[in-house]
């Protein structure tokens, strides 16, 4: 059972969280090509090591960015979206 830190509520059991999407892939807006749109919808980095991911803390409903290591599972930071 991991412990993740919600930027507002603080550390909680991993069952209170839901992985949404990898961070830093903004929604392309001005008529992206098919490939750009497909990349936004589906492409994934799946880094082996440090990663920035958008997570949701289910009880409070806040989306936030969590920096963690996908191999060692250490969590290094969590910051609110804005």
């Amino acid at each position, binding site marked *: *059972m*991991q412990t993740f830190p919600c930027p507002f509520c603080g550390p909680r*059991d*991993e*069952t209170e969280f*839901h*992985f949404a999407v*990898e961070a830093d892939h903004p929604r392309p807006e001005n008529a992206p090509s*098919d*490939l750009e749109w*497909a*990349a936004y*919808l*589906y*492409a*994934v*980095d*799946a*880094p*082996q090591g440090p*990663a920035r*991911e958008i997570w949701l803390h289910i009880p409070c409903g806040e989306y936030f960015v969590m920096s963690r290591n*996908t*191999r*060692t*599972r250490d969590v290094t930071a969590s910051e609110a979206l804005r």
Partner: protein
Amino acid sequence: MKYSAFTLAREALRGQSGWQPAWVKAKPRDAYDAVIVGGGGHGLATAYYLAKTHGLTRVAVLEKGWIGGGNTGRNTTVIRSNYFYPESVALYDLALRLYEGLSRELNYNIMLSQRGMLIAAHTPAQMEICNRIANAMQLNGVDGRLMEADEAADKVPLANQGARVRYKLMGGIWQGRAGVARHDAVAWGYARAASALGVDIIEGCEVSDIRIEAGRVSGIETNLGPIRTDRLGLAAAGATPGLAAKVGVRLPIHTYALQAFVSEPVKPILDTVLLYLGTGTYLSQSDKGELVIGGGLDRVPTHGQHGNLPAQEQVLSGLLEMFPSFGQLKLLRQWGGVVDVVPDSSPILGPAGPKGLYLNCGWGTGGFKAIPAGGTLLAHMLATGAHHPISKPFDLDRFRTGRLIDEAAGSGIAH
């Protein structure tokens, strides 16, 4: 040396001293006609079919650890083709048909046990979804049918029929040809046959980079030195996205941990493979008597081959809801594999990035059942440079065109 009761008896008289190594432990040469990255079932099968079907023997399979040590050695050994879309059925039933002849073809007993599989439904709405899938299977020429409650109860007599049962067994989809096989034997069987045909199987060899010249693959860097080749097959499951990224290819692959569990062995108590839609837990009993149990993913992106407690509590409480008497059993072993999950839960087969590079990945939780097909199709692509009709729909480009093959969406059941 041929494996048979006769050679086994003859060796009995000589203290089993006459057996040869099952596969030759090769050192890498500096060039090959084709190189396959990943020494799991798919990689070894590819090498076998390259040599057997296409006559290409200057081939190497590179495995960073020990062959069969990745997902091939970490799955719950279920084999089935109870899929919804024709493209999926063509792929998985090709694998099942090849499995049906594999022990004889490889002269290696993979212990294919076609004991049948039941996907169990608990509400009228779920029974309708099962009927939708059963009819799709029949239309695609696969032996699937809707099974009613009483026949289902005969298949799993120990299933929960208590007054306060949470998920009543109302029937479901039955595939008779589905079953289980010994996973290690599939890897070792293909390795032995490929090695006998002259393929180099190289363990302890990790690929660190892919070299390109004039838009075409020209070789790879490994911890055992550089190797030249202009045909490269990637069949390394969770490690494939990292390798593809080196040639600028971003794949739609999330890597999650999928856990599996084995109980202490008991006398036979379960004769089929069973999945409950309600709990999401599925299981079978190995020939040694252990229950082999699986369930949902740990939905936390990872590359560590282990899972965590919440998923274990989820899967095992689901198991005991299905079979309360199994509360007598003890957990003997628990482990995890890193599965490469694609948004439409179908694999990615086909060329990508520089010429000469071919992908066989994205099998997610369903790779073991597809090994013979994955091998046949990747071998075909490496040998001919073109898609096989069965692999074509699973090309990476489907994500651009939107023609996904989404089994979970189509069938209404998470795969």
